[in-house]
Structure formats: C-alpha cells, structure tokens
C-alpha cells in the first residue's frame, strides 16, 4: 500500500506533465491535422531552455517557464513557416519532414550537451500525509497543469483567436473568403502548441534533468495519450494523461519501468482497436 500511494503521488507529476505536453498535440495534431514528429523535440528544447535560463544565466523558475514557452513557440513558428507550411496536403511528407527536424534538433543539442544536465529544484521540500511524502513541487505541477488546461480552453472557446482557429480548421477556403489570414492563424496556433510542449519540458526539467534524447520517449507518450483521449478532446486528454501517467508510474513501482511501458503500450493498442476514436470524442461531420 505504501508503494502504491507514493508511486501514485509521483504519477500525478508524470500525468500533469503529460497533460501539458499533450495539449500541445491536441492543437497541432487534433485541430491542425499536422502529424508533428518533432513534438518530442519541443519538450526537449523546453527542458534545455530551462537549463540555460536557470543554471547558466541564473534566472528564477517563473521566468524560465515563460522563457521556455517563448523560445519553443518561436522555434515552432519558424519550423511551421519554413517547412511544414509547404506540406499541408501531404501527410506522409509531413511525418518525414518533422521527423527529420526532430533528428536535427536532437543532434544539435547533443553536440552542445552530450551529457544529462541537472536543473535545481525550484520548490524544495515536502509534507507528509500519513506514510506518504508529497513534494511541494508535485503539487505545484498539478495545479499548474490544470491552470494551463483552463487557460487553453478559454483561449480556444471564448476568444476571437480561438473562434478563428475553429473556423480555419473546419473550412479553410471559406474562412479565407471571409478575409481571415489562415496562414498566420496556422503559424500562431502551431507556435502555441509547440510552446505548451516547451512548458512541459521546462516543468519536467527539475525532476528528471535534461538530456538531448528525452524527446523521443515523450513523442510516443504524448501521441498515445492524445489518441487514447480522443485527438480533438482537451478533456479526454486530461483523463488519458492521468490513466497513462499514473498507470505507468504505479506499475513501475511494482515491476520495473520497462515492463510498465510494455503493459501500457499493450493497453493502449487494445483501447485504440476497441475505440478508434479515442475515449472521448467530439461529434464531427
């Protein structure tokens, strides 16, 4: 029971980070229909930004979060403008191109930082609840991820930008006729999605450190979370983040990390076979 509870607390941390990163994918993959294989690299870049801002320059954690968001969002927008834009109607080429980008980004970072780098814990300490130790940082990450979820929902449902985005994803040509610049909406949206991945990487950094190869694991994790939750569903993503993040961490406590991954992988492909639209779907035409 002790193992279960403490792993459960750790799992919430995993789930929260997965949620932030996967929200970026809901936007990029779900709404924009871009299979962005460089999403994992955006998480990695967020982590690297956190390292540079906090450890090299010495800025506080809050600034690092904002910085990670801005840096990855800008890189994301640049990639969208230069490379992905030309491939919007070619899904296979998009996969390959973004995959190539992820290789390039990973390798550039590897040349600079071949070893894993530590980022200090901005919120040290923990409190005890019975036999379980709950780090303050985990609580912060949990609340923070929910705040981001609420903010993103607000952005997409209530603001004019969100409405524009909705109309662009539903009927591109029609929206163009109405005089909305779909191209800049695409770029900004992609940037926001990439920025979320950057935040996830930044928040992740103090717990796991930063290494050039952290992107590829998170790439598949976020995609699986996204598809299980329903590719256009923010709410579903929240639920599947908890299922996958918790499932993996709790199981890792009893077996080991590899077997936990294998079991989660098997569960995911069974779920997708049974519910190809994901657990939560938006009804679409």
């Amino acid at each position: 029971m002790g193992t279960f509870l403490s792993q459960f607390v750790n799992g919430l941390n995993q789930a929260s980070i997965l949620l932030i990163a996967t929200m970026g994918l809901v936007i990029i993959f779900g709404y924009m229909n871009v299979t962005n294989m460089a999403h994992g690299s955006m998480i990695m870049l967020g982590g690297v930004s956190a390292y540079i801002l906090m450890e090299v320059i010495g800025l506080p954690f809050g600034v690092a979060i904002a910085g990670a968001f801005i840096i990855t969002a800008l890189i994301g927008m640049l990639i969208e403008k230069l490379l992905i834009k030309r491939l919007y109607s070619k899904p296979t080429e998009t996969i390959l191109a973004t995959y190539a980008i992820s290789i390039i980004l990973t390798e550039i970072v590897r040349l600079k930082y071949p070893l894993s780098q530590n980022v200090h814990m901005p919120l040290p300490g923990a409190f005890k609840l019975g036999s379980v130790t709950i780090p303050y940082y985990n609580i912060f990450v949990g609340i923070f991820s929910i705040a981001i979820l609420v903010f993103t929902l607000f952005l997409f449902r209530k603001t004019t930008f969100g409405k524009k985005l909705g109309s662009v994803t539903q009927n591109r040509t029609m929206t163009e006729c109405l005089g909305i610049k779909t191209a800049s909406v695409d770029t900004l949206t992609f940037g926001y999605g990439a920025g979320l991945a950057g935040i996830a990487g930044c928040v992740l950094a103090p717990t796991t450190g930063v290494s050039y190869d952290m992107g590829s694991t998170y790439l598949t994790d976020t995609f699986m979370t996204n598809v299980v939750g329903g590719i256009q569903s923010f709410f579903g993503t929240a639920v599947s983040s908890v299922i996958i993040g918790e499932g993996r961490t709790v199981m890792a406590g009893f077996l080991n990390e590899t077997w936990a991954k294998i079991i989660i992988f098997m569960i995911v492909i069974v779920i997708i076979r049974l519910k190809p639209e994901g657990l939560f779907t938006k009804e679409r035409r």
Partner: protein
Amino acid sequence: MSKVKSSLAKLPLNRYFDVMMLIFLAVFPMFVKEFRVEMMGRYICYAIFALSLDLLWGYTGLLSLGHAVLFGIGGYLIGISYQIQNGVVPAFMQREGITEIPWFYLPLQNPIVAAVLGVLVPALFAALIGYFAFSSKIKGVFFTIITLALAQIFKDFIINVQKYTNGFNGLQSIKRFAINGSAPLSKTTYYYIILGIAVLVFLFCLWLTNNRVGKVCTSVRENEARLGFLGYDAGAFKILIYTISGAIAGLAGVLYAPATSTITTEDIGVTASTMVVIWVAVGGRGNLTGAVFGALLVNWAQSILSEHFSSVWQLIIGVLLLAVIYFIPNGIIGQLVNLQRRFITDKQKNKLSEEPVQAAAVVKATPHN
C-alpha cells in the same frame, strides 16, 4: 524484332538499373579484398531489409518507424542459436545464475530451426501488431506512432532481459551457418548465398507488387477510403503486407547477424529503424530498385564519410532526409523513372493531339453554380 525493341524501350528505366546492380554485385568479390566482400554482404542484407520496408511503405503507404524490431528479432534468434551450441550455457547467462539453457531456447540450438523461426516469428509478430493497428477507423499515421513506440520499447526490453540477451553488449561470435560442428562458410561463399537470396526476395517482391495483391496495396496507398467503397477489405490486405514485410525483414536479420558475427541493441532500435527509412527515401520508394539502390548507396557513403564525420553523422542524416523530401520527394530512382515516363507520355500526347477529337474542347465562359 522491332516489337521486342519497342517493348524494351518501354521497359521502365529501373529494370535496367536492377540488371546493372546485379552484375556489379556478382563480380564485386573478384576485384576487392575479403573485408570489402564482408562489408558488401552486410549491405545486401540491408538491401533486403529495405525491400521489406518498401513493400510496406512504398507500395502500401504504411510508414513504419520501428521496422528494425522485425529485423532484430530475426538477428537475435540466429544469434542466440550460436550462443547455445552443443548445450553450452553462455557466460552472460551463467553470470546471472542460469545453469541450464532455458526451455524456450532449446529449439534454437539447431541453426536451421533458428533461421526458420527468425523469419516466422517476426511475421507473426507483425501480423499481431497489424491486427490491432489496421482496424478500418484508425488513422494511418497512428501506425507510424505505434511502430515508433514499439522500437523504443523493444530496445528497452532486450536490454532489460539481460540474462537472456546479454543486454547492451549484444551477441557476438555468430557463425556463418556452421552446422553440426562443420566449419563456418567462407566469407565469399556466404556473400554469394546472401546475394542469391536477395535476388529471390527481389523477384518475389516484383511478382507480388505486379500481382493483384500488390495492386490492391497500391490502391490502399492511393486512396484507402475509395477502396472500401469498392467492397475491398483494406484492413486484411494491410495485415497481409505487414506480415510479408515482417518475414522479409526477419530474413534480412537472420542473414545479417552471421555476416557481421554480431547483433546488438544498436541494430534494433529507433536509430536503426530510421536508417532504413532513409535508405528507401533516398533511393526512391515504390519501385523496389530504389530501396536496393538507396541501401547500397547510403551505406557505402556512410562507410566513407562517417569516419570523418562520426560525431555529426546523425545530423547529416537528418539534413539529408529533409533535403530528399523537399528536393527529390520520389528519391533518386523514382525521379529518373518519372522523367522517363514523362518523356514517353509526351510523345503519346503529341500523337493524340494530332487527332481532331481533342480540339473540340471549349472552355465554359461562366460555370453555373
């Protein structure tokens, strides 16, 4: 005679390429040192591996980013066979306290059985994954994600079950099919065996893709939804092609491990899977020749260049992939075949436009909506 000549002229360019490559590979051992022969033998294994991906990706449009898993299963099965010859428990198992060969390894003592399993197991594994991944409603890209996750997990798995696989270190001293205590095949003999099998695999792929099965697979790539409306069970064809592809990838692995005498986790993970995608992309997907040519070319380039650029080699690979996508999306061979085709159809069109039928077209002034 003139008929033969004209049908030869219509033959796609890549078929000439095939013959040239075969002649080159057949005479290659006569002119080079033995270690080069060994090296080229390895590349031919890669070419077989590339063919398996071409069936799946080039012809059917299903991009696997974890194809090295299937290759690796084949390689590991034959590799294990040579760790447990004559009932000897290998050192890496003894270190973990295993005193007897585990029951599930016993059949592998016979290298022939191991080789056959090395083809069948990956095929079955692919069929199983395919069954889950190719239900009608699942987006095609998800297959790519699943296979990528598979590659990551499989590598972790092999490392994790160290007592059975020697983990990170991989398996060494895999003999070139020494059977019942006989001496292993010579490097040159083994080279020609690999080449012979490669030719058979190539001919099989050629037959398959020109067969109805291949045509349906091509239609899956072109327009899967349309195929469904025509009453085809696209899912079944996808599972079939993935299974066949798995068998061929496994076969490539079975041939590869003895050719280099080792198989390690480097040969099975995401990086290895990415490499095969690159070979096919560079050579050109969907025409078989491109896969073989790409595998030989990229590996040859790697053998020369990676010594000088070993630290940035992966970076070069990434940039190369990006360049191929934007500048020669059909790959080298694909681009050449397209040029030839355009040349032929231009000729045909010229012939057609001399007839009066085409001239009648009048463009509507205002299309009524």
